[in-house]
């Protein structure tokens, strides 16, 4: 709980623009049946993740309890309750990639970034996730960084790819 109290993002709704966007999404969708998932998806697009205060605001806007909203937000793997890196690395662990050694790709990414799958680097530049099939099985094993797909990977290619994002930062 201490962490939460110290975290400004948990108490505020971000910038005024973000807050206005969130309220607009809630207003626009709240009369549509089954709109909660859509609103959470939009909210995540605005904030990058779903801080508890955002979930509270959505719950109030829809006249639902926080536990309802939290229940949905934690059920689906797409939703994240913690911030993600600027570059989101997602290594495919679907079957086609797995049998072509994607577990070794994930190990290498973890080694290169010094964090585990599901974590974010201290400088906020990278986060790692695993995913189940992006559908580019012809290029297995693959990983995505943001929207970009990298295929036919081997562990020795990983460093160069990550470095290109670090360069871009400089």
């Amino acid at each position: 709980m201490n962490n939460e109290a110290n975290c400004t993002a948990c108490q505020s709704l971000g910038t005024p623009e973000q807050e206005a966007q969130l309220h607009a999404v809630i207003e626009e969708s709240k009369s549509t049946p089954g709109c909660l998932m859509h609103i959470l998806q939009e909210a995540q697009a605005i904030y990058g993740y779903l801080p508890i205060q955002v979930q509270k605001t959505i719950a109030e806007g829809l006249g639902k309890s926080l536990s309802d909203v939290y229940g949905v937000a934690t059920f689906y793997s797409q939703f994240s309750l913690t911030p993600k890196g600027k570059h989101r690395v997602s290594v495919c662990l679907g079957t086609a990639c797995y049998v072509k050694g994607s577990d070794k790709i994930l190990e290498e990414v973890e080694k290169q970034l010094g964090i585990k799958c599901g974590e974010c680097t201290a400088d906020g530049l990278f986060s790692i996730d695993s995913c189940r099939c992006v559908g580019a099985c012809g290029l297995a094993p693959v990983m995505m960084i943001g929207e970009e797909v990298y295929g036919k990977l081997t562990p020795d290619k990983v460093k160069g790819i990550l470095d290109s994002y670090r360069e871009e930062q400089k």
Partner: protein
Amino acid sequence: MTIQELDAIRARKKELIDVRRLVKEQAEVLAKNTAYRKQVLVCGGTGCTSSHSKQVLEHLEKTLEEEGIGDVLVVKTGCFGLCTLGPIMIVYPEGAFYAQMTPEHVETVVRRHLIPGGEIVKELLYQGTVMDDGSIIPFAETPFYKKQMRIALRNCGVIAAEDIEEAIGAGDYQALEKVLSSMTPDEVINEVLESGLRGRGGAGFPTGRKWMFAKASAGDVKYVCCNADEGDPGAFMDRSVLEGDPHCVLEAMTIAGYAIGAHQGYIYVRAEYPIAVQRLKIAIGQAREHGLLGKNILGLGFDFDIDIRLGAGAFVCGEETALMTSIEGNRGEPRPRPPFPAVKGLFEKPTILNNVETWANINPIIMKGAKWYSSIGTERSKGTKVFALGGKITNVGLVEVPMGTTLREIIEEIGGGIPNGKAFKAAQTGGPSGGCLPASELDTQIDFDNLVAKGSMMGSGGLIVLDEDDCMVDISKFYLEFTADESCGKCTPCRIGTKRLLQLLTKITEGKGTPEDLEKIQELAEHMKASSLCALGQSAPNPVLSTLHHFRKEYEDHIYNHHCEAGVCKALLNFTIDKEKCIGCGMCAKNCPASAITRTDYVAPGHKLASFEIDSAKCVKCGVCQSNCKFKAVERK
């Protein structure tokens, strides 16, 4: 739009599209009637987009402009199927199939082939189309395409996926026109029933019966849903249909709406498929503009509209009741059946749910008739099935074959066999709900019932090929990790059963298994099958049971000999250096991440430097030493 306007678009576009379907000689004659001397199709599916087909497309358009070539039509299509060779580009009317294109290759093709009087650039073609004597065969004659029969994929890789006029020209909405203008709802349902079409999502329930039940349910509000939440990792059939021919799904859902008396449809699609979602949105917008969705469709008095709902990454939402719960905006947990969705489904109203591939079969059934459709396939499984071929196979990609084709034909002929000279070990069908079939079952004719009888299942169409380097215990552990992770937690047999199965399998892969564990697995699996609430839990033990049945020796090898033949299970591996072969170059030690390799004082006869050895206590079994040794001195046991 009226029927006459629809027919006019079709007439205007038909010849252009037929050029892409006919054999070379006929296509060349027909091409003269169109405004384009040549047509270049570039694949814009996810596979080719990932291998940068967008740059290829942009470069193609730019180079054509630079060369002042204005009579060549460039078309961005969906998937051609042969994803390994992407980006793919096909030139009509000659049907030249260019593979693994780069911007430089594009320039060569434009300057040598697409210019007036140009000739095919043989060295850039898919080499499967070039014979030993230098002659070129149509790609439809290559082993990959020859045995295929494209019904669901009829327009994929043929039309521009973001252009409704191309879709209409290719025959989309013709069945809707026929249904609304000349068939009663009962006649539609009868046609689908008699075609013998069974649901392509996995379970194989007769589609016509589903529709019949929903029509019989009382109520003025009903729903039609499309399951595009393709969760089986390694399967991408539905995605390819949505990317290549989204209108065929919209059309079929509208037909079903007419048949059961529904006016609203929902497509539940994975958010992980950005291209498919985008094309669906474009398609729905265009269909509304053209009066093919919305009020008074084609002026024939029927109202129907479709909305998209994005999934958020939950495998269980592929189960029909869970999917509906998710569309309602809740946690996607399944509900007990009965009541079945046809009676009480989405928002508690009668609902039918079919998957994308099922919908893709509706237009041909209406247009060509139930009799034609039921003449294809086996006695109890009619039509074709699309498979996503993946894993250890030469031609990774998308194939559509008549039901009854054998696994051997798919893997050895269409798929081109196992690469790198390795031996086939197993074919996995049905994903986390299916099983593995060994070499002795390769002549099994694929249909719904045969696969179930062999301990696997059709599933949605993922077909992963495994070779001698894959450990079957590890593969079942992989699937159990998946189902344990994806179990929604609502019912105990699945929530706890998957975890316990996973623990037992982990134990075996770590060399700590006992013979009793195999009995426990068997017993637990039977309980889960019998008592789980939905198909996820009921089928989760299948990967274990089928491998235990066909590959029991591998399990026993792990348990009794602490040995993993495939060399996958790390805890059972041992790396050693053959002192006689080691020349002492030190590449292994230099690359070892754990500093586990040191020099000995032994110099083998004929070598100048002392050999190295591995400290097994420090070794993390990553195998880097082995892959760096050029002298094959590192052994894995």
